């Protein structure tokens, strides 16, 4: 079965990770079963987003058939600056989506800069993947409140609410047609409930691959342990991400 992972990170210098070239990372990801991956910065979520957008793009330059690089910006830099960086990431770097992590980046979803940034990302055709499930900045319904204001932008709850807020993520997904849930980090029994209650065309596989070895394989197994049908699994693993961002380009 083809599998596109919609939640992976480029290991950098933070979180005790070990940086490695894209060829090695690709090799690891393929060995764990992936056909392609949406790849986010790790270091850039802690600072210097523009520099880290450059690093990510350069790192995967020879592997764009496998990796879809996502940029990041920080709304605390102001909406204008963030939007300029988004434009640069699209036109100059050819990046394909936006990753935001309000917890690590320390901004509230109610910051006035967030809405224009999300609207602009949507206009560029960037899906926006959020870390979610962690109060006080990234509860699923905080993100949903903004998703409601930018209906043309695809918003991905990158952890489907995690174990404490997955019920809220389900509500958000049921209410807003621009919200997708990435089944990354939510436990296996809760994944089953999400699959039962959400439109399958808006569910995505994700693993946080890049953070630890064998994480991708384990999280693929978690989906396979559910009672989801083979056709639903095909949607989650491949058809849905492929519809949002075709790989290879």
């Amino acid at each position, binding site marked *: 079965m083809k599998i596109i992972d919609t939640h992976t990170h480029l290991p950098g210098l933070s979180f005790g990770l070990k940086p490695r070239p894209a060829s090695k990372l690709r090799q690891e990801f393929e060995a764990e079963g992936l056909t392609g991956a949406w790849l986010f910065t790790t270091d850039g979520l802690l600072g210097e987003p523009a520099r880290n957008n450059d690093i990510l793009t350069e790192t995967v330059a020879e592997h764009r058939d496998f990796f879809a690089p996502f940029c990041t910006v920080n709304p605390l830099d102001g909406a204008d600056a963030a939007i300029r960086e988004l434009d640069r990431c699209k036109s100059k770097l050819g990046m394909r989506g936006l990753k935001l992590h309000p917890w690590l980046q320390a901004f509230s979803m109610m910051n006035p800069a967030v809405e224009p940034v999300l609207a602009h990302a949507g206009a560029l055709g960037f899906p926006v993947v959020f870390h979610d*499930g*962690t*109060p006080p900045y990234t509860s699923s319904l905080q993100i949903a409140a903004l998703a409601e204001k930018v209906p043309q932008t695809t918003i991905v709850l990158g*952890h489907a609410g*995690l*174990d*404490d807020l997955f019920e809220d993520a389900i509500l958000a997904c049921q209410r807003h047609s621009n919200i997708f849930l990435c089944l990354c*980090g939510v*436990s*296996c*029994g*809760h994944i089953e409930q999400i699959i039962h209650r959400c439109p399958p065309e808006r569910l995505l596989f994700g693993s946080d691959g890049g*953070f*630890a070895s*064998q*994480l991708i394989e*384990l999280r693929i*197994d*978690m989906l396979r*342990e559910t009672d989801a049908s083979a056709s639903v699994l095909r949607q989650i693993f491949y058809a849905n991400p492929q519809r949002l961002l075709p790989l290879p380009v």
Partner: protein
Amino acid sequence: MRMPLIIDSAVCLRNPADPALVKAWLDQMARHGIAHAVIAPADGYAAVYNEEGNTLLARLARSYPKQLSGLAAVNPWLGPKAVSLLEKAFDDGLKGLFLCPPRQGFRLTESIVDPLLEVCRQRRKPVYAHTGTPICCEPFQLAELARRFPQVIFIMGHAAYPDFWYDVAAALQQTPNLLVETSCQGAAIIQQAIDAVGPERVLFGSGWPRSKPGIEIRKIQSMGLPAATLEKIMHTNAMRCWGITP
């Protein structure tokens, strides 16, 4: 690597009186080679219907003494009645106290839980606490409680999954009577806990039905632990902690 005998310290049964649910869990045990499981009350039984839930679990444990043990849930807000309910549950054979602050509506550090912990101290019963949900059951809150009752064994349920992973090892280091249970949490964090305080304070849990035994066993297998360490985590520590001999 071949898995040693498995004791599962983290199972919830939504309704211990439902034969289909019980059978489903026993099937899981057989399928994954789990010799014994410690069952906690879930949902309404943890929050409100404590006596009913405890009685059902005690009955279930008596029906399957080789395979199952039970924990008692008592809502601390019941005051003096909570103490008598807990005494009764222990008299009925339940092996420890299950605390679920998000369901029971208190913070681990609140003194209303102290009378229950005093019973646990007197009866030498361990306390398993759900952890990982802010603001009521964080690792350092449980460590604080463990320091307040140094003679009681406390278990950090689900290793504070999802977002308090960075506190797990440091909280364990604060007090020797705090153990950690492995379900849901990532292998790297379990390894950090082992490195910080040794494998003697780590208990395997499947987290059923929140997680699944196959996934949780594979996670531990993937860590490449030495056989002696694996034996401690998969059963020796649990036997000592809960006083069970499968």
